[in-house]
């Protein structure tokens, strides 16, 4: 039984990492129908900038704050320079643009910083917490709390704030949103800043566990993307549940079936879910208008 609990705790830890990345996808997707494959790079930047600022002597919280602000700035730049000019391009072009951005950011990071793997200290030490024979690191609790907090904030943002509803309105019908007086350009800029900041915050939270280097972004983006699709793109609830589900699935497969095929199991389940529910677990159903 302690094994099951340990697998579960491991799954929740990893799942919370995926959920954090997946949550970053939702805002941009909601505002612009763009899946930003550079989302993983935001996470990487959050970790890398924090590390180097910390290494330069800044206290960790300040280093993290700088990283989050700087990454948000990069997110805004990405929107202004690459996404806005490409408005209305087909899905495949947008995929290539954001993957291009991801490669670009990776290339720049390796130049500005380095190609080494880095880690900074966990926020509350490394003393494992014992729960019924299983253990979890305090940093994992930070990550889980971070995922829940961001989920909650996003939920409030999209349902309770005017600007959050404006984001949804922009996604539903850009022209109509403009007609009712929403500044859609501002909405887009805001959503990229927020997505990037969430990504960077994720990077700050997970780096003590996952470590970071210039090339961790793509793998994170893929898993986060898969998690977001599993839950249903654009829905914060979907991102959270999808991420946790994916993490737990991987841990259970690694624990009970085969660690070699744990990623395979995750993708098999994603495929199965999409076949049964083409919009993911919590995605909106859409009807073709003709």
């Amino acid at each position: 039984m302690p094994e099951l609990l340990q697998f579960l705790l491991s799954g929740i830890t990893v799942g919370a990492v995926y959920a954090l990345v997946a949550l970053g996808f939702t805002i941009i997707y909601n505002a612009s129908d763009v899946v930003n494959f550079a989302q993983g790079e935001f996470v990487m930047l959050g970790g890398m900038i924090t590390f180097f600022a910390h290494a330069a002597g800044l206290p960790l919280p300040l280093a993290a704050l700088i990283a989050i602000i700087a990454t948000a700035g990069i997110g805004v730049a990405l929107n202004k320079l690459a996404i806005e000019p490409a408005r209305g391009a087909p899905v495949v072009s947008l995929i290539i643009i954001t993957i291009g951005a991801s490669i670009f950011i990776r290339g720049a990071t390796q130049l500005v910083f380095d190609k080494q793997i880095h880690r900074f200290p966990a926020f509350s030490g490394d003393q494992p917490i014992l729960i019924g024979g299983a253990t979890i690191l305090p940093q994992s609790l930070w990550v889980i709390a971070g995922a829940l907090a961001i989920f909650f904030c996003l939920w409030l943002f999209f349902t309770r704030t005017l600007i959050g509803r404006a984001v949804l309105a922009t996604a539903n019908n850009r022209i109509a949103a403009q007609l009712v007086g929403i500044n859609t350009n501002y909405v887009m800029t805001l959503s990229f800043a927020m997505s990037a900041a969430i990504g960077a915050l994720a990077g700050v939270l997970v780096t003590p566990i996952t470590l970071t280097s210039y090339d961790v972004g793509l793998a994170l983006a893929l898993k986060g993307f898969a998690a977001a699709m599993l839950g249903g793109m654009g829905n914060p609830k979907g991102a959270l549940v999808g991420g946790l589900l994916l993490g737990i699935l991987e841990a259970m497969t690694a624990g009970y079936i085969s660690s070699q095929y744990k990623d395979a199991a995750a993708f098999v389940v994603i495929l199965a879910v999409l076949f049964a529910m083409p919009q993911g677990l919590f995605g909106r159903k859409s009807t073709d208008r003709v």
Partner: protein
Amino acid sequence: MKFSLTTTALAGTLALVLGFAAPALADIKIGATLSETGPASFLGDPEAKTLKMLVEEINAAGGVNGEKIDLIVYDDGGDPNKARTFATRLVEDDEVVAVIGGTTTGTSMAIIPVFEDAEIPFISLAGAIEIIDPVRPFTFKTPHTDRMACAKIFEDMKKAGISKIGLISGSDGFGASMRKQCLEIIGEYGIEVLADETYGPTDADMTPQLTNIKGKDGVQAVLNPGFGQGPAIVTRNYAQLTVGLPLYQSHGVASDGFIELAGAEAAEGVRLPGTALLVAGLLPESDPQRAVVVAYKDAYEKATGKPVSTFGGYAHDALRILVDAITRAGSTEPSAIRDAIEGTSGLVGTTGTVTMTAEDHLGLDLSAFRMLQIEKGGWKIVE
């Protein structure tokens, strides 16, 4: 209209193809294709930096036999297909006399046929034994084979009376290759693998695998072949779960960076086979390798500001072997260089003392590996 347009476009591409810059003529052209970026950049980056640094040093000191070395380095990103193209380019276009490289086993195996066909000596920096076994006339390598690392570890285990172990290996090239080679020879040491787990190169948590190993009755020690962040996370999870058994890492993480990543506390007591390079300062004055490894370590850390790693050491040795061979051959004919490399004898490198023969294109024995243990955030030789 359309016709002329497409022709222009294609002609443009052609011009691009033809426009590859041809490097200036130089005295001794040495090529390298390394994985400076991509999943193996952890290995390839220090290798490339080492080569560039050493060539600069050699040229500043007057070159080899009075001729300067012209080093051409390509970054294959760890992609064997790209590596093969660069290998062809080095041979056919750059017309180098010898090549160092192939950071990974995959890239090395992919480019060997190019050099064997062209009869250009090639010194690989990758671990697998397949590279030099069977011996191919023009192919050499400097790192110990992964099999030797396995042997070193198993010897140490045997000495400690360990006969049942758990294995957790990375599913990347390095981890998978070492796992395979360890499993091939493990029977010779009377050691049994009770649990055989793997993890992906970008995984964030290995506690499920380690929980299973911990839960297996009779496991006396755990071995983790891998490189990159994986082993650091394994080590941290190992401490988190308080597995309490001896943990063996591989030479893939033999660098100070590993202790930093895993944390001195979690890494306490971890054993691994490493080269003299890692414990340069601890070597007795009488050690023949001391002078070489201290000089390289100091130069590298001064030039790059990064801690030295075993992998850079492989590149260091490859270039030393090559320069030594060219000096002895007194010629830059590829076949003469090849013969001279095969005649390498008693050359002291970072990995050990190299003596090659027609049957042995590696020239190292197990004594070149030192069993190291991490204590209080530093290395200790345990032999």
